């Protein structure tokens, strides 16, 4: 019995052969020594660019930028906090759009992209909450307060965690993706609430730093913040590409496992019939000898 891969190529000689080889050898049917990872030339270039930009961020954020008149050196946390919040929003946007496209097109790639966006966004939401708390202690005198911006960000984090928990449910993959996609649609409306919370409610949190023609910071502080957007943007993109490929691989691995299980089941069903085959054939032969 020969198992067939989703790509239609023959691999293995056993119905239980999933094509899983030892590390480094790769599955049967693949080129020996083929790279077994999610990297490519593009991601390597992106990774080096991200590392260089992070080095520049450390230089500008911790050395070149002056201390703020009001915040003191706590302003240096803003160079990580503000870009992380922005890319948290971007991750949520990616998930919502990919979820909508999954519900419309049912293309597995959109489902993988939605999952990647939510997971990376969750990591950035932890960074935002952590750096925000560490900034709040010397500036506001407290790590946490039930302010509109902080509370809505915590709700967004919980929503992202719930979305990812839903994706881990042991149910039919299609139904699971559909339910997760419906939850994914709620992310962007929640982001709008987080972003506008400082305007809609009385808030301890400061207003937008850059979203105006005359930003509230300038000089080396503005440059440090821009470098922060560049560095964390490159890191975000690198993470998104790798995480998307991991989600894609998870889908393909599930298909390979399903094919192997189906092949094993067909072999089980075919085996008794095959064993009885010669007798049946003999009977048929006997019957054929009976004159009409």
């Amino acid at each position, binding site marked *: 019995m020969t198992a067939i*891969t*989703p*790509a239609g*190529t023959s*691999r293995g000689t056993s119905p239980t052969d*999933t*094509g*899983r*080889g030892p*590390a480094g050898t*790769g*599955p049967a*049917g*693949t*080129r020996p020594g*083929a*790279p*077994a*990872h*999610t*990297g*490519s030339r*593009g*991601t390597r270039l992106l990774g080096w660019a991200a590392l260089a930009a992070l080095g520049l961020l*450390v*230089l500008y954020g*911790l*050395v070149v930028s002056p*201390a703020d008149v009001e915040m*003191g*050196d*706590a302003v*240096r*946390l803003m160079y*990580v*906090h503000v870009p*992380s919040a922005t890319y948290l929003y971007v991750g949520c946007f990616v998930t919502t759009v990919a979820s909508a496209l999954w519900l419309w097109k049912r293309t597995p790639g959109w489902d993988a992209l939605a999952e990647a966006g939510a997971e*990376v966004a969750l*990591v950035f939401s*932890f*960074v935002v909450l*952590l*750096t925000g708390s*560490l*900034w709040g*202690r*010397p500036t506001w005198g407290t790590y946490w307060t039930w302010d509109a911006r902080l509370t809505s960000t915590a709700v967004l984090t919980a929503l992202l965690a719930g979305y990812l928990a839903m994706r881990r449910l042991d149910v039919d993959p299609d139904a699971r993706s559909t339910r997760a996609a419906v939850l994914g649609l709620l992310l962007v409306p929640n982001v709008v609430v987080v972003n506008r919370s400082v305007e809609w409610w009385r808030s301890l949190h400061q207003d937008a730093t850059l979203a105006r023609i005359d930003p509230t910071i300038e000089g080396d502080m503005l440059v440090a913040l821009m470098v922060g957007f560049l560095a964390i943007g490159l*890191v975000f993109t*690198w*993470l998104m590409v*790798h*995480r998307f*490929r*991991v989600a*894609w*691989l*998870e889908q*393909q*691995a599930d298909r*390979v496992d399903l094919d192997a299980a189906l092949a094993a089941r067909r072999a089980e069903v075919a085996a008794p019939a095959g064993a009885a085959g010669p007798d049946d054939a003999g009977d048929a032969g006997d019957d054929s000898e009976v004159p009409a």
Partner: protein
Amino acid sequence: MTGVTTMIAMTHAGYVAAGWLATAALIGGYGLSVVRRGRKLSRHVPREERRWS
């Protein structure tokens, strides 16, 4: 050397250091886990399905 002196002389240096280190640990740790998951899964999937390799 100037950079190190600048950082030591900071106000709220502990908060700044904690924030930057925690960010590096969170993002770096997550990136590492993604790469590891990718390596592990890549061995289970035929090369034709790994379109980037």
